[in-house]
């Protein structure tokens, strides 16, 4: 993997659908899974696969992301040679391309030029998966592909937002990529993770920049499907794209199944994140917790069912939490009742308060609110 570098793209404008949750942060630093941020998943995949040079392209509200990533130490990417680098937005001569994604590549062309690696793994930051890029790069090489795109098979019966679907031949070669809202049973849904050579990436970016077209996918890959060898790589285990509150909630709840928990967090490698030094969770007398995921630092005196509690959450006596996601350092007062609620960080719910989301939509409470 010495010859492979990674690019994590936080520059696409994709936080719009996340409403209050994305008010203070970019989507990459969105808390997920009890202690992680969305970027941890692809970043850990890259680090665990032996990719030593990773750039993170940012666009806006990336303060919390920089705080989270630090020097990259948590991913073993604090290196003299290469390592993790955050590349903030900047425009060339005041000229900003309509799509920030392409702008990032062009603005940071230097980074690509001085990197020694010749193969690039490009990934969007809002994909939750645990993937061995080592296996994927091997597949890419064995197929002799120009580009390898990742996909997962969709689950039926869910209202999906617009997604790109792949049509493949028997060899796994991509014949067509079309956008759809209603996913057919076992449709192949494209995930924005690509493997390609550095020169090809630069070529596609420069060409599409001249065309002043949309993003890498729509301007670079789709128009060239017939003159390039584009192959598809399947993610067979749990994977999710988070770009709406609804999907955030639904995919979070999927972690409350032991098999998914194991698949996502342990296989093929451990997901790494910034270490917070919280002590183990404490269960007091009268606590009743089941079907839930709890991070370190929690103190529980009440009832928690079918919920995800991030680090340092306090649940008072007699409180009842059901089907909810409670982020870092929230405090739930005695006797409070929460059902289908997403509390952002540092929310204080006073004693006896009742908060209910409705069946179609969870109730989202903004960071640091006192209720």
């Amino acid at each position, binding site marked *: 993997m010495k010859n492979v570098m990674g690019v994590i793209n936080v520059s696409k404008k994709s936080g719009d659908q996340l409403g209050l949750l994305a008010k203070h942060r970019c989507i990459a630093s969105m808390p997920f*899974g*009890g*202690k*992680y941020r969305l970027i941890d998943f692809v970043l850990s995949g890259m680090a665990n696969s032996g990719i030593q040079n990773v750039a993170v392209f940012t666009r806006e509200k990336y303060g919390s992301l920089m705080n989270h990533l630090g020097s990259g*130490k*948590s991913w073993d990417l604090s290196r003299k040679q290469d390592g993790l680098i955050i590349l903030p937005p900047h425009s060339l001569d005041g000229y900003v391309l309509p799509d920030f994604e392409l702008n990032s590549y062009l603005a940071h062309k230097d980074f690509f030029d001085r990197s020694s690696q010749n193969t690039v793994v490009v990934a969007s930051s809002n994909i939750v998966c645990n993937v061995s890029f080592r296996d994927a790069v091997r597949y890419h090489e064995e197929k002799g592909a120009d580009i390898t795109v990742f996909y997962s098979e969709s689950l039926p019966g869910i209202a999906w937002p617009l997604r790109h679907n792949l049509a493949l031949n028997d060899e796994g070669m991509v014949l067509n990529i079309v956008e759809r809202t209603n996913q057919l049973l076992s449709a192949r849904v494209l995930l924005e993770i690509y493997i390609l050579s550095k020169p090809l990436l630069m070529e596609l970016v420069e060409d599409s920049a001249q065309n002043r077209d949309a993003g890498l996918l729509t301007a670079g890959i789709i128009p060239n499907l017939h003159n390039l060898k584009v192959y598809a790589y399947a993610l067979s285990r749990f994977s999710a794209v988070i770009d709406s509150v609804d999907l955030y909630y639904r995919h979070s709840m999927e972690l*409350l199944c*032991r098999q998914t*928990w194991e698949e*996502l*967090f*342990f296989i093929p490698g*451990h*997901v*790494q994140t910034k*270490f917070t*030094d919280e*002590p*183990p*969770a*404490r*269960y*007091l*007398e*009268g*606590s*009743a*917790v*089941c*079907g*839930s*995921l*709890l*991070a*370190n*630092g929690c*103190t529980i005196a009440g009832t928690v069912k079918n919920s*995800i*509690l*991030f680090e340092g959450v306090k649940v008072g006596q007699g409180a009842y939490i059901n089907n909810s996601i409670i982020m870092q350092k929230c405090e739930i007062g005695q006797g409070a009742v929460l059902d289908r609620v997403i509390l952002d960080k540092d929310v204080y719910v006073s004693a006896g308060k009742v908060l209910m989301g409705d069946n179609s939509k969870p109730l989202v409470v903004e960071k640091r609110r006192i209720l």
Partner: protein
Amino acid sequence: MIPKKECIAMLLAGGEGRRMGFLTKELAKPAVPFGGKYRIIDFTLSNCANSGIYTVGVLTQYKPLVLNSHLGNGIPWDLDRKEGGVTILPPFVREKGGEWYRGTANAVYQNLFFIEQHNPCYVLVASGDHIYKMDYSLMIKYHQDKNADATIAAIKVPWKEASRFGVMHTEEDGRITDFAEKPQLPRSNLVSMGVYLFNRKLLTKYLRIDDINPLSENDFGRDVIPLMLQDGCRMFAYPFYGYWRDVGTVESLWEANMDLLAVEPELNLYDQNWRIYTVDPSQPPHYLADTACVEQSMVSEGCNIYGTVRRSVLFTGVQAGEGSLIEESVIMPYVRIGRNVQVRRAIIDEYTEVKDGCRIFNNSHAETPQIILVEENMIIQENSEINR
């Protein structure tokens, strides 16, 4: 030469922990796991970092491999420094041959070159195998205020336990008049916590004197401290009132873990201003299944629990199957417990697998029961019984 640093710490971490049975079979006592995610030495190391002492020598001797890899380059404690940081100091060979550390004082004596290299005003000597939170910077302040040559941290213990420790007698202003290491008949219940602060020059002098004394056992409590007192050094007791445990036995390790389960534990691990740091095990939040029931317990990351857990401490990555009942026990990292297993008043050591239907059971209701200890890396076959 102008002193480069105010204070450096020398942590004694060579202890074998002979009374801890299998727990110290493969590792030194400071490396024994404690409190759901820590190792005992994390407390002293975190105390150093939180007190602003960033040069720490760790003196190792007995089975140091686990300890060495735990310490690494000191990152978890913010002790990865260009200047100082954490340095592991094992015994080594010299031109005229080498030797093991003969006692606590000798261990520091053999590393005087390390102290000189850092050239501090004060040297803090502390055990790496005690559990407590202490701000050494306050002790340094006390030491300076008293214009002391040496200061010994002191705590009151129940009279019946005093004879296990170094017993001190002080004047009203805290000046030590008498020090007896493990006396049969203690004159006081004020005992040494094994945390000493010395003026560097005086420490060097007395360690050299101690080294050439053929009758000395080269121990701080037994030899160096009494000698300094005899010579009229100004030595003071620094009173400490918090939680402090020297867990020497399986039972006391169990008890110290149980102490954490009190409604208001004396040792508060949740204090944001005095974090206890340790190595990141990179585990996800723990998972409690629909069948799980957990009360009055501590559960760490990476666990997945299907059974019932009461008054217990579950370390990182523990599994417990459906129908199992774990009571008043300490389950060390990555232990796997099958279905319908009963565990009561036991310590199960790291990586052991307890298969379905086993009973590891202590029926005693005594306040200080004998604890069943199950060795690390064992496989306990289905339906086995371990009773006491």
